[in-house]
C-alpha cells in the first residue's frame, strides 16, 4: 500500500511533539515575538524622542498598533526574526541525517519523494503557525489600542498576512535546502549564516541593481516593504505601501527551485 499524506503528517507530528528541543525552541520564539510586539511602540517612540532633541520640528507620533498599519508593522518586524525558525528547521532536518533515521524510514518503505514531502509539510506548518501567531497578536494588540474605528481592520494591508506566510515559507525552504546539502547541524547553520551575512551580499555587489533584486534573500526581504513612518515622511522618503507582484512571483519560483533541489539531492544521495 502506498503511504498516504495523512500517514506522513502523523509520522512528522509524533517526531516533533515528543521532541523537547523543538517544543522549547518554538515556545521561546513565541515569547520573543510577543515581547517584541509589546515593546515595539516604546522602541519606535524612543527613536522619535531622540530626534526631537535636535532642531527638527516635532514629529507626529508613529502609532505602530493602529489598524491597518499594524498588519504591515508586525509582519515587517517579525520578518527580521525569521532566522530563529530557520535554525529550528535546520536542526530538525539535519537530525534525520545525524540519527540516520532517514535511511531507516526509507528502507522501511517510505519513498524519498514522500520523505521530502513530509519535511516540506513541516516547513509549511511551522510557517503557518508563526503567521497565525503574528496575525492574532496584531489583531489583539490592535483591538486593545483601537480608538473606535473598526472598519480599518479589513484593509488591503491585511494581505501582508498571506505575504508573510510566503516570506517565511520561502526563507525556511532555503534553510531546508542548506540542511539537505550540508547534513551536519553545525555545518548547515554556519553555511546558512555565512550565505545570509556575506555571500549573497558579495554576489549582489557584482550584479546590476535590476538583477540584484532577484537574489533569494533580497526577493524575500522585498516582499513586505518598510512601513512609512512620519520620520521618513519628514525626510521625503516614501516606501511602497503594498507588496509588488514581481516579488511574489520571484518567491514562488524560488520555492519551486528549492523544493526541486531538495528532491534532487535526496534521490542522488546514498544514505
Amino acid at each position: 500500500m502506498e503511504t498516504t499524506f495523512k500517514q506522513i503528517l502523523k509520522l512528522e507530528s509524533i517526531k516533533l511533539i515528543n521532541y523537547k528541543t523543538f517544543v522549547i525552541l518554538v515556545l521561546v520564539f513565541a515569547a520573543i515575538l510577543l515581547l517584541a510586539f509589546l515593546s515595539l511602540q516604546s522602541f519606535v517612540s524612543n527613536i522619535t524622542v531622540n530626534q526631537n532633541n535636535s532642531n527638527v520640528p516635532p514629529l507626529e507620533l508613529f502609532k505602530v498598533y493602529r489598524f491597518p498599519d499594524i498588519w504591515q508593522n508586525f509582519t515587517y518586524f517579525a520578518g527580521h526574526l525569521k532566522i530563529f525558525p530557520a535554525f529550528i528547521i535546520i536542526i530538525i532536518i539535519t537530525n534525520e541525517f545525524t540519527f540516520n533515521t532517514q535511511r531507516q524510514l526509507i528502507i522501511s518503505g517510505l519513498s524519498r519523494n514522500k520523505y521530502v514531502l513530509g519535511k516540506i509539510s513541516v516547513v509549511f506548518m511551522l510557517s503557518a503557525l508563526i503567521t497565525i501567531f503574528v496575525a492574532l497578536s496584531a489583531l489583539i494588540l490592535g483591538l486593545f489600542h483601537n480608538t473606535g474605528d473598526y472598519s480599518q481592520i479589513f484593509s488591503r494591508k491585511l494581505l501582508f498576512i498571506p505575504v508573510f506566510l510566503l516570506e517565511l515559507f520561502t526563507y525556511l525552504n532555503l534553510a531546508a535546502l542548506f540542511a539537505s546539502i550540508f547534513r551536519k547541524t553545525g555545518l548547515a547553520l554556519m553555511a546558512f549564516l555565512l550565505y545570509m551575512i556575506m555571500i549573497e551580499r558579495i554576489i549582489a555587489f557584482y550584479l546590476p541593481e535590476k538583477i540584484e533584486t532577484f537574489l533569494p534573500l533580497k526577493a524575500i526581504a522585498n516582499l513586505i516593504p518598510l512601513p512609512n513612518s512620519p520620520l521618513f515622511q519628514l525626510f521625503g522618503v516614501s516606501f511602497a505601501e503594498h507588496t509588488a507582484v514581481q516579488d511574489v512571483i520571484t518567491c514562488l519560483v524560488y520555492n519551486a527551485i528549492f523544493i526541486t533541489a531538495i528532491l534532487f539531492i535526496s534521490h542522488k544521495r546514498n544514505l
Partner: protein
Amino acid sequence: MEEILNINGLSKKYGRIQALNNFSLTVKRGEVWGILGPNGSGKTTTLGIILGAINCDQGNFTWFGQPISPVNLKRTGALLEHPNFYPYLSAEKNLELIAILRNVDSLEIERVLRFVNLYERRKHRFQTFSLGMKQRLAIASAMLGSPEVLILDEPTNGLDPTGIAEIRALISKLAAEGTTIILASHLLDEVQKVCSHAAVLSKGNNLFSGNVSEVLNQQDIIEVASENLTKLTEAISLYPGFSSCRTLPSHIEVVFTEKTDPALINTFLFEQGIVCSHLALRKKSLEKYYLELLNSKIAQKVK
C-alpha cells in the same frame, strides 16, 4: 520455488574503491542466506543497494519479480548496519513510527517488544539503551508485521552470549516458519548454524555462492590419538584414500579424499596393533572453508 530476490550484476564504486563488482544472486522463498566476508568486503553495500538506500552504478535487481518500490519494501523487514532510531523517543514510540508507515496494527508493537525482551523498557528513551538493547529493538522493528523477508546486517553485533543465542534461535524459528532470511555476518559460526545457503564476498567480488551443507560435506576430518603418534601416523597413511595428515600435540588430524567410516578406521588400526585412545569424525567447518577460499587462487587473482 518462487524467486524472492534476483540480483543481476550489481557494481558500485566509492571513488576509486570498487565496493561491489558484478554481484549476482538469486534468493528463493524459504531460503536462509548468509552473506559472508571480512569487514569492507561489500556486504552492507549489497544490502544497502537492494533496500534502496544506496544507488548502484551498474546492474539491477528485482524483489518478488518487480523493480524496487516502497510497496515491495514494506514486504521486507530490515536491519541495516547500526540500529537507527530517534534517541529522544521511547522504544514504543520509535516502533509506532514504523508501524504507522507500514500499516501494521499497533498490537504488533507489544508482540515484538515482548519477543526481544524489551517490553519492560518500552517507555524508556532509545538513548538510554545499551548497545545490545538497541540491537534488539532494531530486530523487533524489522519483525514488525511479520514480513515475508528479513534482511539482517550483523544482527548479533553487540549482544551478549545469551542475546546471541536468542537471536539465533529466533532466526531458526522464523526460518522454520518459512520466512526468507538474508543475513550478513562475519561470524562464520553463526552462518553455519542458521543458514541454508551462503555467499562469500571479498573486496566486492563474489568468491562463492551456494548450499552450505554441500560445502561442508565435501571433506571430513578424522581426529585420532593413541599412545604413540608417530606409529599411528605411519599406520594411517596406509589406509585407502588417505590424503594428508597433521600432527598436533595430543592427536593427529587426517583428511581423506573420500568419505570414510570411523568404525572401519578403528578396525584397520586395531589390525595394525594400534589401540585408539581418541577417534572422532569432524565436519569441516565453514570457517575453515572460508579461510581457504579467501587465501585461494580466486581471491589472490582478485587482489
